[in-house]
């Protein structure tokens, strides 16, 4: 069977010594930044992008992927033990996880979350394997007009994830698309918005932008808020949950896994959305919802399984269609381009070793994470005692060195400073950075497909409505836009984000 052959190929690639080492490195780094508040996977992956220059493509993508799903594991540890979510995706875990810890069930909460995450990660990987081929085959039928519409759908769907005003998020997409056009026009060689700066003729590198928007701006905001970490750390005794806890956790983890996996595939979805929806679902179907917030096992098992399943399945649109569904995936697309690989359906046919190797490594990485997180829990907890006044300058330093090593030029370091200021302005004005980054990465491709589609149709814009695939995608996009404008949906969406902040 083809599928088994592919998997065998994947595992043979992923189990090589070099790739195992980078998977482990990625998982360790992911857990580290997951535990530490104030730095997320987006800024970390942006900092490490330059280093991946020196690595072979498969190894670098395996490492970056490890950082992403590793952060989902690490974030839950601090949520449970000190009531501080390391990542946005584990905010809900705080609600019941920390309460379980205060009731003396810290060890049980940790092991349920780790084992639930591992199970969800396994299911997520299987789903990728099953869906990758049919989706890729479908994508190969896409013409330029279809691709253009698909990107429009992806961008609009990403808006749902942005909290706050929909119209502001849409404006951020357009701003990102515009920034993406800076550089030499591919078709005519004309310089666009380069201001005679030679470094800009290749376009604005997105790594310094991501570091500025997500790294520097975040540090500045944390410094303003005077981030302090108080509150006693809870001692972990036995890691074993009771039979009763296991009995309640299993169905919750199953529901969380499938809800998270489904939401992860959607453009604009991701671990955070998955975790919130899973928690809400558990609360709704529970026989005694009063338990939630007081240490309900279901409130830990479901969102933890969901965020990990979603972290895995959000790779599907990126791997098969080349469309990133969130900011991390946008950077993964960037990492592929750095390595000279054009993301899209060709990756699977032209680079099967990379494609299947990466998928196999995700499962291996998930297994590693259980080991990294459970027996080594003490080390991670001790890291929490490092005060932020040591961390903030160190993160700044790594951003600067990372930006420099991109092309050995201090111009990129200056770019980090400029986009740090811009990111700070965005935060102060309540504008989300993620839609901007997606627009930035997709901008050049989208223009290319748009121009090609118009050339093929001899300037008739109706081509976008005449091709069935494109028409279907555009109708979906329009429906999403209408849905977001509906008062009832608006209210539900606002409520979801209020809970997130609270």
């Amino acid at each position, binding site marked *: 069977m083809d599928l088994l052959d592919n998997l065998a190929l994947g595992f043979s690639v992923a189990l090589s010594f070099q790739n195992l080492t980078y998977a482990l490195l990625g998982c360790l780094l992911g857990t580290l930044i997951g535990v530490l508040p104030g730095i997320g996977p987006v800024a970390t992956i942006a900092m490490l992008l330059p*280093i991946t220059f*020196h690595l072979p493509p498969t190894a670098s993508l395996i490492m970056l992927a490890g950082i992403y799903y590793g952060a989902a594991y690490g974030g839950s540890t601090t949520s449970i033990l000190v009531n501080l979510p390391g990542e946005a995706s584990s905010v809900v875990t705080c609600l019941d996880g920390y309460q379980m810890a205060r009731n003396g069930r810290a060890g049980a909460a940790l092991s349920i979350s780790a084992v639930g995450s591992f199970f969800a990660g396994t299911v997520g990987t299987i789903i990728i394997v099953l869906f990758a081929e049919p989706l890729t085959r479908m994508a190969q039928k896409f013409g330029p007009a279809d691709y253009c519409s698909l990107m429009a759908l992806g961008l609009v769907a990403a808006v749902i994830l942005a909290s706050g*005003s929909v*119209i*502001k998020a*849409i*404006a951020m997409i*357009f*701003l990102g*698309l*515009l920034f993406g*056009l800076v550089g030499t*026009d591919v*078709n*005519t060689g*004309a310089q*666009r*918005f380069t*201001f005679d700066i030679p470094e800009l003729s290749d376009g604005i590198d997105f790594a310094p932008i991501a570091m500025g928007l997500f790294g*520097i701006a975040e*540090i*500045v905001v944390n*410094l*303003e808020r*005077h981030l302090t970490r108080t509150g006693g750390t809870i001692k972990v005794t036995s890691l074993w949950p009771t039979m009763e806890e296991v009995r309640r956790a299993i169905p919750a983890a199953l529901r969380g896994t499938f809800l998270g996996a489904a939401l992860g595939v959607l453009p604009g979805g991701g671990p955070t959305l998955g975790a919130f929806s899973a928690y809400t679902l558990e609360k709704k179907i529970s026989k005694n919802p009063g338990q939630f917030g007081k240490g309900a096992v279901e409130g830990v098992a479901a969102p933890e399984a969901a965020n990990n399943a979603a972290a895995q399945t959000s790779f599907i649109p990126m791997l098969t269609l080349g469309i990133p569904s969130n900011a991390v995936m946008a950077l993964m697309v960037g990492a592929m381009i750095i390595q000279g690989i054009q993301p899209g359906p060709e990756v699977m046919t032209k680079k099967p070793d990379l494609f299947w190797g990466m998928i196999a490594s995700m499962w291996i990485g998930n297994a590693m994470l259980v080991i990294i997180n459970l027996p080594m829990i003490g080390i991670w907890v001790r890291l929490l005692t490092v005060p*932020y*006044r*040591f961390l*903030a*300058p*160190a993160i*700044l*330093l790594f951003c*600067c*060195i990372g930006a*420099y*090593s991109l092309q*050995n030029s*201090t111009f990129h*370091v*200056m770019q*980090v*400073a400029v986009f*740090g*200021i811009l990111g*700070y*302005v965005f935060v*102060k*004005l*309540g*504008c989300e950075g993620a839609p901007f980054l997606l627009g930035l990465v997709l901008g050049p491709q989208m*223009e290319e497909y*748009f*121009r090609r589609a*118009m*050339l093929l149709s*001899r*300037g008739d*814009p109706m081509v976008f409505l005449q091709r069935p695939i494109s028409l279907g995608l555009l109708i979906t996009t329009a429906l999403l836009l209408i849905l977001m404008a509906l008062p009832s949906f608006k209210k539900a969406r606002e409520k979801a984000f209020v809970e997130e902040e609270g």
Partner: protein
Amino acid sequence: MNRFLSKDFLSGLMFIGFGLIALYFGQKLALGTTVRMGPGYVPRMLSLTLVGLGVLICIVAVVSGSDPVERLKWKPITLVTIGIVCFALLFERAGLIPALVVLIMIASLAGEEFKLTEVIGNIVVLSVLCTLVFKVGLGMNVYVLRGVW
């Protein structure tokens, strides 16, 4: 409450501003035709849409109001930016260690607490770590201290 100093109104102005800047600097780019688009066609389309969205955001903000902008604290953003710019200026001219020392010093001043002994400790640890990782480990082509190594 001043409706014109709200988050939404000001972000609307920001989008209009970016749109107008792009229109101004993009005016020399050839538009071409819908069949054969020139380099200026898509940028023009995007900047016009951006200006339109900005105007819409402003109108909505004035009509229905929005949250006021939080008070800015100038110290962290200014010091962090100065720190990065100093790093960029010093890195090639003087080397990794001087750039690192200046960046960490300035960045540490941006926080609320500043204890000199702690900052020096941080600098020593990071200097050793960065030299080992970037110079020795990754073999980056950079001076650790110009004229010495």
